[in-house]
């Protein structure tokens, strides 16, 4: 399988703490890759480095075969690499549909066109429906429950037809019904060819859904491989149990 995303020697220090330490792994095209590790092992920081929200101290990122010299969220999103945040981030004062349409990447020529054109609204409703929140389409997004906000954020990043989606703990703080929903969404989208890199603490979910699995501990990669390989790796058990 070809790699869609290649991380090589990624490093980030915050003062004395090395949050991500010479970390290398790849996300094969068409996979649902998991990035797991104990709290504070640098998963979110790695996401921030890859998507250009923080500047790496060292290391290289390749997306779709091309080196990403200075990762910039805007450019990456427009070239098909997008992410969600650990704490769901949506635009609370906009409606759900507006949230969705805002996530469509627009050319300059359309800035003076109508905010929400009919086909855009239809596309948004279709996606919202898949996520089971279409009936709330014209609600203020700020009124949603936390789990619904996560669904909305996930749905919105799909508006721009990305090729790789980075999900930061998509099921954390979400009720079990919605967790199933999210799992099903990921499966279905993946079947349609979308690649995922998922940070997730729910190990059952990871084992069911993801392949390969990358394990981080204290910023470095501990293991990388098929779920069952990783599960039986003694170092991984140590990292989780020991601390």
């Amino acid at each position: 399988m070809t790699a869609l995303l290649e991380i090589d020697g990624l490093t980030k220090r915050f003062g004395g703490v090395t949050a991500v330490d010479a970390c290398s792994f790849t996300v094969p095209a068409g996979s649902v890759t998991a990035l797991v590790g104990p709290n504070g092992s640098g998963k979110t920081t790695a996401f921030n480095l890859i998507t250009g929200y923080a500047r790496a101290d060292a290391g290289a990122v390749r997306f779709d075969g091309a080196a990403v010299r200075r990762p910039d969220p805007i450019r990456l999103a427009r070239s098909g690499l997008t992410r969600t945040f650990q704490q769901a981030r949506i635009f609370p004062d906009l409606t759900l549909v507006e949230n969705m349409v805002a996530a469509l990447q627009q050319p300059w020529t359309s800035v003076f066109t109508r905010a929400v054109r009919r086909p855009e609204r239809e596309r948004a409703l279709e996606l919202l429906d898949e996520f089971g929140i279409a009936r709330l389409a014209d609600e203020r997004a700020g009124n949603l429950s936390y789990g619904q906000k996560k669904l909305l954020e996930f749905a919105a990043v799909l508006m721009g037809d990305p090729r790789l989606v980075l999900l930061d703990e998509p099921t954390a703080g979400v009720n079990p019904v919605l967790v199933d929903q999210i799992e099903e969404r990921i499966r279905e989208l993946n079947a349609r060819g979308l690649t995922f890199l998922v940070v997730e603490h729910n190990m059952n979910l990871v084992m069911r859904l993801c392949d390969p699995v990358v394990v981080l501990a204290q910023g470095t990669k501990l293991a990388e491989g098929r779920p069952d390989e990783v599960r039986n790796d003694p170092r991984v058990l140590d990292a989780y149990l020991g601390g």
Partner: protein
Amino acid sequence: MTRNGLLRGGAFVAAGIAFPLLFNAAWLVNIGILTLMYAALAVSWNLFSGFTGYITLGQVAFFGLGAYSLGITFEHFGIGSGYNPFYVLPIVGACVAFASLPVAWIALRTRAMTFAIVTLTLLFIVQQLAFNLHSLTHGSSGLMLPTPTTFGVDNYDRPFYYAMLGLVLLALLICWGILRSKLGLMLLSIREDEEKARGLGIRVTGTKLVAWWLHVFVTAMVGGVWAYYLTFIYPESSVDPLVMIGAVLMTFLGGRGTLWGPVVGALVLVPAQQYMLIHLGGSQLYLVGYAAVFMVVLLVLPRGIIPSIRDGVVRTRERQRTRGGAAKAAV
């Protein structure tokens, strides 16, 4: 456009056109002009700061640039008197707006608080330029513009009044258009969470610059009309921090990010300000009065009149709904 919106707009235009025809005392029309001037400034301030969340305190620098640009154009290009200068205004506005883009780009690289301060610095920079570029501006001795002789004596103020009215309407129209367009959607998402907006691929800087260009475009034209009306401008009056704070205050009073808020704010505050100026002006006490009004607005009504009313309406409706529900449940 909703029916209510049409009604509101229509009523404003009708009242605006009728005012000088009904009250033709020069001092009243003069207050009308000032009110419209502040309304135009407040609406265009809101157009940038209200929609992006970036507070600019440098708007009046572009008011001054517009004023001086028109004055200097008069001196060097003989654009004539009468109505001609009004036709030159859009060119002046567009030029000032384009010229402001590089500075705006630098300022927009900084975040909220720094941005406010940097723009405030722009205000002082332009004032200094007005003092120092003697050959263009005549420095502190001020710049004279020709007095239009064709307007007659009786209704001399009217063309200026209608020009200001036109600019208020233009600014409102731009805001209204933005609120309905993709640009508005992008600006609002930037105001709510700029980092998230970047992650979605919204070109935040370019989007903010479009809003910036539009706000400077209107502001500079307002400055031009004001200069032509006064026929005499000097650095302290054309780049006046008090005008800046006035426009901001009016927007806060009426409601930031709303269409009509800044207009409401101007309609309330400018007459009040003029009243204080007339009654307290000689003793400098008007500054104290002004500061007091300012404090009250910020501490008591920080969200503004229109949002407060809107909330009130929503709350009453909800209360009625729950009461209705309770009544039904009781039956």
